[in-house]
């Protein structure tokens, strides 16, 4: 990922975009935070938040025309909030008046002509920045047009109170001094460094030929500088006799102050100002679940909200944000943030030269299911980000060796001599189709592979060959293009020997892998084949219950397949209950992307979240999905259970086989098929498989959790018994031995009883014991 890609990705995530109210306010009041603080009853903190953008909240809260309200997302479900009244409540009930505090001293002087809202704002902003400010007002009191409001709307004592900040900021006020181009402006220019003119409606003629610079707020970037450098102008002065909303005067004053500051520092007046003023935010907020509300009306405009009324009204704020992806993804939720932050973390993780790579787990635990892109308004896809990042880590030789080693070894096993099989149908030398059940169906329900294969040969095509192997998905998920390429080469060699006919694929992940990574391989879903034979299905019809259908995440964009599985389930007599997230928006079961191995706790959270979405039995068409749901106690059936099993009740509660049993099932499937269909016995009598183990279910569970396989244990025992290199406990008669295997150093505590080995415990580590004389490498 380069910087440019990072910026693009960060820009795609809109979670940090301003809420519509803030974007709709010319000075970008943080209305969302303001409401959150008021809703908590913390008016002082709310006032502090407001003062960051509005210098005179007691005034603005009474007279603001609230352009923010038209953007409020509450509009459609109760109405836009009374934001000005809430701001006023902050001024009324908050007591955190800004202290002048320490300010930098700039040693530069600014004159502000006119004390209406724009001039006042410029004066306050520049005084806060450390400039020496003198404010000129032609009248006897400050405030300009503010004094024209009726006392009921804006009481004079409120204006006086709010303007007390001027003396706190040491702003020199000169009343009764009218400054025009003809009188006073020249001498002012001689005695100060810059001037702001905010003299209000109807005073244009006082400054002939001056108000022609880059000073129209409608311009893309308005600097408010007049035709004379150093002289700036803003506020209703620029608008003749048209009404000019007070908040726009504040905005003009604020933005002109920014220009003056930049001018006086010799900085660019125009750089990075594109989002000043009112704009339309890109933030998306899902309003589907928003319940209507009744807003709190202001009974007496002169009195405003009571404390309780303001609190109640603020609670109606929707606190607009996006988080569409985070809402539906336990992985994104677990890491406590959102994609904009995650892509930066991932970029940093890949760029770090020295120090801990803290985001390895973030990169490696995504299920790569793509749901985020499906729900994102901009289709930001963390699958692509994480998948690319894993490949980068592998290329940089920075992928932790433990990250994916067990699944990769399992893949190696599935494609090795003990499990792999590719044949034409027995008694034929040509295949019109090849059945490709996938390694996980072979691991979970090997008998269904046999039954399906028989079914295909009798009802679909007798020239259906068979390929037992892994499609290479673990290598793809682990970012191991080298291993994927090897698996593909090996597959292609055998596939070519069988004449490259279409593959009938049972597993959705295999089908996705084969379609995306194996060019020139034509695949047909097993479910498409079965759905086309409704007579056959009707014969097997025996049910009348409702089941909840879980779509595998690998099928996300295969709507034809979604229809096929539904028609099969329906033909078999079931009623389909749809889960809240299904079809193109389905969820991963916790297996995808090797999440289950990298972060088993997260995988469990994912499963638990999915299985509580419907009380009915779940039906899946991926054996891993079924086993994962079953592993957390959910009654779940694979579609082939519906087809082949009489006792569906016990089948639904069948325990998911552990890692060792899965490998054993695959191995035995091959042996059985060779004997039963091809009349061959390929069993190796000398293999260590013949070392008999006795393992209690409790111990087996520990071994499965630790990914220690029966074969690992056999390898340790074989070595220990051959060399005698083991510890012995004379009291218990047990042994403890270790052997360094390919992946791990494995320790086994065992005893020898009646020609079998009783296993009490096993554990492993990756660190190596540095020994000089004993080479234990397997």
């Amino acid at each position, binding site marked *: 990922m380069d910087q440019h890609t990072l910026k693009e990705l960060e820009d795609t995530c809109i979670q940090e975009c301003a809420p519509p109210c803030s974007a709709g306010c010319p000075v970008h009041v943080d209305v969302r935070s303001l409401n959150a603080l008021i809703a908590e009853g913390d008016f002082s903190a709310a006032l502090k938040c407001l003062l960051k953008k509005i210098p005179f909240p007691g005034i603005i809260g009474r007279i603001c025309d609230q352009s923010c309200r038209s953007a409020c997302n509450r509009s459609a479900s109760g109405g836009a909030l009374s934001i000005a009244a809430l701001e006023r409540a902050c001024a009324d009930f908050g007591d955190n008046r800004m202290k002048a505090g320490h300010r930098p001293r700039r040693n530069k002087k600014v004159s502000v002509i006119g004390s209406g809202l724009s001039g006042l704002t410029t004066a306050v902003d520049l005084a806060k920045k450390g400039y020496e400010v003198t404010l000129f007002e032609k009248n006897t009191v400050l405030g300009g047009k503010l004094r024209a409001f009726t006392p009921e709307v804006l009481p004079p004592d409120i204006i006086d109170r709010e303007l007390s900040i001027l003396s706190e900021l040491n702003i020199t006020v000169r009343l009764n001094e009218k400054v025009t181009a003809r009188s006073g402006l020249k001498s002012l220019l001689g005695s100060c460094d810059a001037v702001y003119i905010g003299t209000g409606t109807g005073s244009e003629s006082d400054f002939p030929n001056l108000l022609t610079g880059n000073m129209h707020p409608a311009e893309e970037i308005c600097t408010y500088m007049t035709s004379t450098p150093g002289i700036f102008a803003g506020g209703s002065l620029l608008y003749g006799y048209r009404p000019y909303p007070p908040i726009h005067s504040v905005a003009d004053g604020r933005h002109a102050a920014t220009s003056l500051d930049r001018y006086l520092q010799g900085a660019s007046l125009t750089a990075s100002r594109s989002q000043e003023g009112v704009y339309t935010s890109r933030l998306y907020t899902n309003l589907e679940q928003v319940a209507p509300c009744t807003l709190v009306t202001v009974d007496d405009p002169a009195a405003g909200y009571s404390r309780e009324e303001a609190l109640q009204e603020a609670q109606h704020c929707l606190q607009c944000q996006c988080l569409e992806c985070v809402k539906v993804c336990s992985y994104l939720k677990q890491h406590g943030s959102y994609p904009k932050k995650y892509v930066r973390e991932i970029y940093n993780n890949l760029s770090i030269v020295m120090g801990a790579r803290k985001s390895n787990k973030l990169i490696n635990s995504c299920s790569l299911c793509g749901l985020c892109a499906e729900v994102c308004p901009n289709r930001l896809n963390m699958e692509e980000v994480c998948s690319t990042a894993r490949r980068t880590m592998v290329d940089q030789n920075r992928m932790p060796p433990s*990250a994916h080693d067990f699944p990769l070894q399992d893949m190696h096993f599935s494609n090795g001599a003990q499990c792999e099989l590719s044949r034409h149908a027995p008694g034929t030398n040509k295949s019109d189709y090849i059945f490709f059940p996938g390694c996980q169906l072979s691991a979970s329900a090997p008998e269904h592979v046999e039954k399906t294969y028989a079914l295909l040969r009798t009802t679909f095509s007798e020239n259906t060959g068979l390929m037992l192997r892994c499609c290479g998905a673990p290598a793809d998920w682990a970012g191991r293009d080298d291993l994927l390429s090897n698996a593909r080469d090996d597959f292609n060699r055998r596939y070519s020997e069988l004449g490259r006919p279409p593959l009938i694929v049972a597993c959705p992940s295999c089908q996705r892998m084969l379609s995306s990574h194996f060019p020139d391989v034509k695949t047909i879903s097993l479910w498409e084949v079965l759905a086309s034979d409704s007579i056959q299905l009707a014969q097997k019809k025996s049910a009348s219950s409702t089941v909840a259908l879980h779509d595998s995440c690998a099928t996300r964009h295969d709507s034809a397949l979604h229809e096929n599985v539904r028609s099969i389930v329906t033909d078999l007599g079931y009623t389909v209950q749809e889960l809240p997230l299904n079809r193109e928006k389905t969820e991963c079961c916790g297996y995808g992307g090797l999440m289950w191995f990298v972060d088993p706790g997260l995988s469990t959270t994912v499963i638990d979240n999915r299985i509580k979405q419907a009380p009915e039995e779940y039906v899946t068409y991926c054996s891993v999905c079924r086993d994962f749901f079953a592993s957390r106690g959910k009654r779940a059936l694979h579609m082939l259970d519906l087809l082949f099993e009489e006792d569906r009740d016990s089948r639904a509660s069948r325990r998911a086989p552990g890692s060792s049993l899965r490998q054993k099932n695959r191995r035995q499937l091959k042996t059985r098929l060779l004997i039963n269909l091809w009349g061959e016995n390929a069993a190796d009598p000398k293999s260590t498989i013949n070392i008999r183990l006795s393992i209690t279910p409790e111990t087996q569970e520990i071994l499965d959790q630790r990914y220690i396989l029966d074969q690992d244990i056999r390898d340790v025992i074989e070595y220990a018994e051959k060399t005698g*290199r083991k*510890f012995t406990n004379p009291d218990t008669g047990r042994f403890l031995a270790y052997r360094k295997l390919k992946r791990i150093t494995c320790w086994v505590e065992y005893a020898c009883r009646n020609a079998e080995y009783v296993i009490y415990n096993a554990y492993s580590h990756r660190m190596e014991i*540095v020994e000089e004389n004993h080479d234990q490498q397997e």
Partner: protein
Amino acid sequence: MTNKNDSGWMCHNCRRPLQTAKVDIAYLGSAFPVELFQCTTCGLVLIPEELATGRMAEAEKILEDK
């Protein structure tokens, strides 16, 4: 860890009790001396379960993320 082995294990081949010794363990190019029980005669080293699944596993992760 005390230098007396009270876990009951002894070396099968040498029939000798174990004693603590500094043993090097290595991972990803880093090696550390660790005090472990070892057969004084043949040098067979014992890594107990708590060490393998505890501190050793933590150290492995730190080294892998470095």
